[in-house]
């Protein structure tokens, strides 16, 4: 099953592993942006606005 985790049938090279590490770091950084208070408030306002609160 592990081979399905990577881009091709070939076993993952260091480049692919590096690419995955970069992707995980970028995703984690973007996820962290969501914890900035003004973002939390903005998103909450948006969610509440949808139902008229």
């Amino acid at each position, binding site marked *: 099953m592990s081979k*399905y*985790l990577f*881009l091709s049938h070939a076993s993952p090279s260091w480049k692919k592993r590096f690419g995955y590490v970069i992707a995980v770091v970028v*995703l984690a950084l*973007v*996820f962290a*942006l*969501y914890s*900035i208070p*003004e*973002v*939390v*408030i*903005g*998103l*909450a*306002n*948006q*969610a*509440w*606005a*949808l*139902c*008229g*609160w």
Partner: protein
Amino acid sequence: MQVLIFGSLMVTLSMGIRHGFGLFNLPITSANGWGRETYALAIALQNLVWGFAQPVAGALADRYGPFKIMVIGGFLYGLGLIGMALTSDPFLFNLAGGLAIGIGLAATTYSVVYGILGRNVSPEKRVWAMGITAAAGSFGQFLMMPLEQGLISNFGANEALIYLGLLASLMIPLAFCLRETGFTANQAGDQTIRQALSEAMGNRNFRFLMMGYFVCGFQVVFITLHLAPYLKDMSLKYPEINGATVATTALALIGLFNVIGTYYAGVLGQRFPKRFLLSGIYISRSVAITLFLLFPLSATTTYVFAAVMGVLWLSTIPLTNAIVAQIFGVKYLTMLSGVVFFSHQLGSFCGAYFGGYLYDLTGSYQIVWGIAIALGVFACLINLPIREEPLVRPAMA
């Protein structure tokens, strides 16, 4: 590779920018002294125009080449955003935010880019490439939400819209990078657009895909719009889930796992029958919703539900479009993807509207959750008998 990179960038921008439109609701309406319905109408109109314009944009792209359609789409998208910033007239705001951006979306999102991918990527790598592009669109949605909030906080809503308009205009040079030099319009004896459309609509596999995609739209939009109100309602019984942080973290988790899910849908689509993957996605959604409703609500169960739904969120896109390409070929892939997407948007409308309507009628979301579960089972079953083999056509006269 060039097609993949620039196609992904195009979808990142087009899907990403629109995802944060809800953030402009309060600042724009209060600055202009409007009720919320003015802004909501523009966004509803945008989604409606997007759904109706998608098959048309697809047909035009298949007829005249996607490059020209994307240039027009990028221009309209940027113009619409700048128009939203500059006008305080509700009618003009609807023209800019509803009509112009709706058409812009139809001309720059998945269907049009998938047509280019279909023609330029080998069949065995097609679903993988579609998965990469879908993941890029998902990443755009995930990334742009906090960035747009940052723009609004630092520059105000109107200036933020102008910056986004300038960002959207980058889609025009991106379209040049996606220009297909070998693209040829129909030759004498080729299937016409009308023939392709009637062939697809008469094909049961295509109809099954449309029905499945309808369910996808219903579930995704219902959860997007109504999960936060549901949590708010239930917080009377479960105080732990009250507050902005739980809803925001749930949205962030959906966005994060959506990127991963769409990418792996493409990877798995290369190796397993796509109809089984689609069935698996739909039934997993039903199971996830059922468990979410059965377990006592807490922040943890909400986060787990959001992560699981995130994995299953837009992972139907590469698989559905790859099946369309596999059965009908790539000549009219853009238009046929647009037709399937129209069904998705109908489902989205129903998810948004009936979610609210049935809540108002019954005072609870339980019936709509039940419908979402039942539709997931239906979509699972309807995808199973799909035949993924290419259509054998008699020689054209």
